[in-house]
């Protein structure tokens, strides 16, 4: 049996996916990013191998994606996360025509054509407003884990209006609202709303064509899913593997290469790692 790997080195987390030659997911790994992208890639790869019991030399092809894709020293090919998220989303939901991915420092809306090809995409500008980093600022200001802020926001009854679009100033604004006596859940819902409207704008920029699939770590946040559905006026597909969608797409590109007869130079050889 041949195996391929997809490695997604993002700004906040590194993810790895192993697929067998039928395209079935046989292993996955995720770690928080560290300063050295090459080391993070190596660590997540080793965890991926450990989760499957495979050795590095038995991986026939590896595709790297994410901002750190060129730092994956054992990668055979680099593909951007735009193509990889589109590919992953299509695999999970074949009728996907629009993908929204909210990552740690990038948000992207991707349009997919009838043949499954990416026809257009739009991304946030250099500012991190409207990305996962904005929620990270809230998590920091409120001193609570990021996984807790979505469920708490769902309890809001009088959401505040967050006016800043700057992630750095957001923290100041949160503290200001709390000082005025607003409840944490109302402030958090305001933060979520601010992100949702910016993301919806990106989606409209490429054309809102259903079905829409929501990928990336922020898709695990129930408040964000609910708000986006409300703002966009359509239901969103959310996979339980949404966080791994870029890595899955990378794995599928690796599988394409394997099927086209290409194999990693490392495959079958003992390589010191």
């Amino acid at each position: 049996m041949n195996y391929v790997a997809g490695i997604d080195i993002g700004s906040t987390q590194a993810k790895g996916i192993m697929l067998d030659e039928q395209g079935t997911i046989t292993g996955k790994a995720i770690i928080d990013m560290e300063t050295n992208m090459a080391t993070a890639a190596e660590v997540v790869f080793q965890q991926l191998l450990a989760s499957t019991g495979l050795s590095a030399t038995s991986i026939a092809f590896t595709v790297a994606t994410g901002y750190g894709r060129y730092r994956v020293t054992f990668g055979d090919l680099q593909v951007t996360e735009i193509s990889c998220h589109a590919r992953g989303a299509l695999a999970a939901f074949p009728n996907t025509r629009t993908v929204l991915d909210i990552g740690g420092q990038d948000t992207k809306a991707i349009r997919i054509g009838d043949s499954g090809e990416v026809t257009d995409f739009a991304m946030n500008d250099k500012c991190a407003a409207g990305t996962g980093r904005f929620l990270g600022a809230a998590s920091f200001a409120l001193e609570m884990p990021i996984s807790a802020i979505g469920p708490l926001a769902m309890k809001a009854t009088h959401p505040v209006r967050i006016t800043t679009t700057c992630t750095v100033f957001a923290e100041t604004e949160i503290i200001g609202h709390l000082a005025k006596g607003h409840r944490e859940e109302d402030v958090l819902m305001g933060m979520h709303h601010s992100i949702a409207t910016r993301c919806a704008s990106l989606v409209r920029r490429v054309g809102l064509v259903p079905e829409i699939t929501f990928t990336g770590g922020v898709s695990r946040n129930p408040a964000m899913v609910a708000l986006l559905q409300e703002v966009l006026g359509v239901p969103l597909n959310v996979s339980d593997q949404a966080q791994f969608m870029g890595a899955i797409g990378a794995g599928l590109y690796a599988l394409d290469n394997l099927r086209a007869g290409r194999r990693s130079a490392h495959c079958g050889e003992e390589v010191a790692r």
Partner: protein
Amino acid sequence: MSASTTTGKLDARKEGQRLVNQWLANLHTAHERGQPVAYIFVMGNAIEILRAFDFEMVFPEINSLQSGVRKVSGDFITKAEDYGFSADVCSYVKADVGLMLSNMQHPSGTTMPEPDLAIASSLCNVYIKWAEIWERRFGTPAFVLDIPGKRFATWKSPPGSPQHLADSRWVEGQFRDLIARCEQITGRTFDPDRLAEVEEHVNEMVRLWIDILAFNQRRPAPYNSMLDGLTYMGVLNAWRGTRAGVEYMRLLHDEISDKVARGEGRVADERFRLIFSGTPCYVNMRRMIELFESHGGVFAASDYLTYAAGGLDSAGLFYDTARPLESLAEVTTLASQAGLSNHFFSHHQLAQQVKEFAADGLVYHGIKSCRTVATSMADNREYINSRYGIPTLYIESDLIDPRYWSDAQLKNRIDAFFEVLEQRALLEGQ
């Protein structure tokens, strides 16, 4: 001394560099030589009249872009911001202010002379405020040319039509005022024959420039319009209306023509032909082009090479040198309609370029410095996407402010754009 190759043949790139250096050296010594100096912009500048009075020209826009190319713009901009200019002000303006705050020491080594005359025009909404800064700094009153633009998107003003003649008379009147001012500054009398001579040079340059732009319709494109093309345009603007300018253009024309005959392209393997819309990022242009050319993508055409090429985008209009002043007004009036503020519904022009240059994709470059240029890009992009179905990309940085360059983010978007182009090529090949 001319820049020649080992075969004795002139090399256009070296000759262009030599001319730029010569121009800067001339500026350095202009006042010592008793020559008057005019500050002008690249669009709507009446350079023909100034040449007839033997002014040396300072183009503050070119000074600023040169500070970007020479990696000094960041320091100049910081000086202007320290003085109190906002981060949102055009970086060209701030680099110019930075130059003034640096005792006019330009990174080229030239001490920029102060102006005896400054001309602004209505073709860019920053020009007039910029010229006001010169007035305050140098005490030189700015002469503002009000050149009428398009009345509406599809408005045509054929040569000789009542609207065209009325507009031309309006502009001609201003030119006469300008001439009176030049006579006052130089102590010389206006010579229409000298103006006609300058115009003859411009006519020849326009003829050659139109051919040079069209050479890139060939596959492979012989030059990259957003790298080589920028160099050509710099020389054209600085030496417009001169014999040296004509000779440079002939050299360039012949060199590119030979390249076309040999089937030689700018990139070894031209895979995608692209159009660039917007202004360059001079502080990192070589890197930006590398991000595209590494995928075999070459910019065959650009709207920048038309609207920023002074009056060289005169849509095939030439001066009637038998009536030099009247003709100057008539051509300026029409040529300026292709300029920046009159760039009404520029998607028509871009769509035309997409067809003529057989483009596979179109890249929009929005800049922090100029929201005017970026304002129409969303509609424009939507139009090209929906009508022509070719992939488009929107990227952002700045003209010369290095703080707005984000290499990883730009590379990510550009790589993804080429993946889109690759997928499309693959589907079309099936």
